[in-house]
């Protein structure tokens, strides 16, 4: 036994180790993007959607130079993995149920709709067994496959469909005795395509991807449509890059075109823009409450929101003369009612009371609305033409029969916004003025605030998205950001009541 007898094998081993390490190292370099092209993002994608998503990711990389790593698996499997690993940036699930679960688990932040899936019966090419409907699943000569309702969305849908026609128990038994249960929709389609299975309920778009598979349309399918959504993961370290791709994938003139080509039914998506520019009309009263939220929203989404703050009377007349904001956050519901036909999904965000403010020290000893009608008072109000506050003030005064006597004391009635009223009263040029409580936050102790005892002395701020915006989903996310609890804290700090979701009578 010479020394050489182990020297040569050791050398070979060393070469193999070095060679394979070098190979893996160069592969890992290949996986990283060239510097300066932004961070690569990881999309956890339902395997059934792999085909369109691979094309979209390739097109995206070509168009923007940004890289998307795709991670495929069953929606449920991916979600479990995300729960453990808390890694990645986006999650594209085959059914909204998984997105909802992800939201409940606080794994998912924003959600963008992508497409819908319709169930069909997958049969072998030419439909040799002549399968026409759900009833054929109980035939003794038909071998069927079902997706496990617990793990696959299509399985849950199939169960509901069979339950509706009272066949579920029979069909479940048929699958157990002469068929098969599969955990994914792809498994079902594979069984029909290359296995012994004659019929299975699958998504129409998935059936189209498989060769040697025909689909039979179901009469009841409209009521069992599933929604494909992409969710931005809370764990993402690059949410802006993730949202950029999510917007691309769900853009009507980008990703959704490819979804359509691959046989899916895309939603009406937003238009694609590298950096979308949006216009928000907002009543001046909201400014302090929403500024920080808007700044965060723009930064996270990588979009630009041009916010026009003004008296709502002015905003309404601008809209009447052709201005077309993407969303509108009104000062009061009455100023939404005037233009409601241009907007959809109106909802309340906040409300604030109207109060009387007095000059420092309250020299005229004002204690109620009636005191404003006393002779010698100097009162400041906002202009009812321009400002919601002005309009509401007039309405309130008329309701309590003080209109003429108080208006007679108004020495400054042209303020376009409440801030001007505050300034006048603070500098004691007027003795009192009517503003929102939200206008008085942070003004210090020298101003006295007197509450007005009337149900009419309140303004509620609704928000709505334009019917004609090219970015309806992005605007929906803006609305979501406004009615989010973080925004709520800012509203409360600014003296508002935060009342998202509260109902109000619409015209």
């Amino acid at each position, binding site marked *: 036994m010479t020394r050489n007898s182990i020297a040569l094998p050791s050398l070979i081993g060393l070469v*193999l180790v070095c060679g394979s390490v070098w190979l893996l190292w160069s*592969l890992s370099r290949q996986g990283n993007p060239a510097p300066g092209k932004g961070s690569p993002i990881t999309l956890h994608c339902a395997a059934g959607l*792999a085909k369109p998503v691979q094309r979209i990711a390739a097109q995206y990389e070509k168009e923007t130079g940004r890289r998307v*790593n795709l991670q495929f698996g069953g929606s449920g499997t991916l979600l479990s993995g995300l729960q453990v690993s808390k890694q*990645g940036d986006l999650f594209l699930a085959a059914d909204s149920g998984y997105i909802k679960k992800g939201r409940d688990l606080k794994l998912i932040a924003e959600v963008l709709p992508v497409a819908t899936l319709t169930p069909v019966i997958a049969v072998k090419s030419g439909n040799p067994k002549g399968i026409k409907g759900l009833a054929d699943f109980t035939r003794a000569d038909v071998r069927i496959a079902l997706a496990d309702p617990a793990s696959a969305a299509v399985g849950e849908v199939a169960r509901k469909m069979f339950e509706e026609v009272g066949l579920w128990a029979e069909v479940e038994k048929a699958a157990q005795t002469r068929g098969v249960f599969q955990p994914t929709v792809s498994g079902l389609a594979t069984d029909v395509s290359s296995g012994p299975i004659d019929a299975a309920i699958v998504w129409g778009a998935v059936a189209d*991807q498989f060769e040697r598979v025909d689909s039979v349309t179901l009469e009841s399918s409209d009521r069992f449509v599933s929604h494909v959504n992409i969710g931005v993961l809370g764990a993402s370290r690059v949410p802006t890059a993730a949202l950029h791709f999510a917007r691309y994938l769900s853009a009507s003139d980008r990703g959704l075109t490819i979804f359509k080509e691959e046989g899916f039914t895309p939603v009406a998506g937003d238009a694609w823009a590298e950096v979308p520019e949006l216009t928000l009309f907002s009543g001046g009263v909201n400014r302090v409450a929403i500024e920080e939220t808007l700044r965060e929203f723009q930064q996270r989404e990588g979009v630009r929101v041009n916010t026009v703050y003004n008296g709502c009377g002015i905003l309404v007349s601008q809209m009447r003369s052709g201005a077309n904001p993407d969303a509108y956050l009104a000062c009061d519901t009455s100023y939404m009612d005037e233009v409601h036909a241009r907007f959809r999904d109106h909802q309340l965000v906040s409300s604030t009371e109207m109060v009387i403010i007095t000059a420092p020290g309250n020299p005229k000893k004002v204690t109620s609305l009636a005191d404003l009608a006393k002779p010698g008072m100097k009162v400041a109000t906002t202009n009812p033409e321009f400002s919601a506050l002005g309009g509401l003030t007039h309405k309130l005064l008329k309701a309590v029969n003080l209109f003429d006597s108080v208006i007679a004391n108004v020495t400054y009635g042209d303020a376009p916004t409440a801030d001007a009223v505050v300034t006048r009263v603070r500098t004691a040029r007027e003795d009192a003025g009517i503003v929102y409580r939200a206008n008085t936050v942070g003004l210090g102790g020298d101003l006295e605030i007197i509450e007005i005892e009337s149900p009419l002395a309140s303004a509620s701020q609704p928000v709505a998205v334009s019917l004609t915006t090219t970015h309806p989903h992005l605007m929906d996310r803006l609305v979501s950001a406004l009615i989010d609890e973080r925004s709520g804290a800012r509203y409360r700090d600014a003296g508002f009541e935060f009342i998202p979701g509260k109902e109000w009578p619409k015209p």
Partner: protein
Amino acid sequence: MAQTLKPHRPWPGWPLYTALGLLGGLYLLLLLGLLLSLLFADGLFAPGEALAFLNSPPIRYALTLTLGSTILTAMVSVLFAVPIGYLMSRFSFPGKSLIDALLDLPIVLPPLVIGLALLLFFMTPIGQAIESVIPVTYAIPSVVLAQLTVAAAFAVRLMRSIFEQIDPRCEQVALTLGCSPGQAFRKVVLPQASRGIVAAGTLAWARALGEFGPVLLFAGATRFRTEVLPTTIFLEMNVGNIEGAVAVSVLMLTVAMIVLILIRSAGMSIREV
């Protein structure tokens, strides 16, 4: 080594050997049938299209990653298997049966459990500390680690039985003749075990090549990142590209056959050990 049987005429054992042959032949027939069905079933395998598919960038990446990771896994497995196998075969110590059971764990456990455990380990503070230095989960190191955890156990078990078959007397003689323990190990034990080491490496490599469950859970199925050939088959099946899945299966079959024939022609085989 079993002696070749020289049958006498009349061959007295023929009913037994025929029965055994028939029984074994059934399994061979099954293997052959599987091979043929991959190649010919339903016109799924067309060499031209298969080659074009295998030459596409994602598949080339998966093939390179598969080769690199499995070879590294095999080498590192041997590196672990030789010392463990040697120590376990030569020494008795308290708690040995416990370690023995631990070493067999990756063989007995479903591979998916290994993948899940790896995933969970890298969520612990220790795992996170490692991740902060070198990203493991869902990256290339996780592929090697997932393969290694399972494959090394097989190599260890094989190496141990190899060392157990080597008579310790040779070593003892070498020691009495003036060798240091290191020299005895290097000059006497290792050369005797050389075929076994190659066999253990080959076994580990074959295990690594087929590893899927733990890779899927721990490394994910990311194209151009952690996609190995078994992952490719899974991904292609998922989008209904059965032809692609068959092409990759045939590729894996070919690679496996080439390696096994090479090893065999070098005069070594797992059987001989």
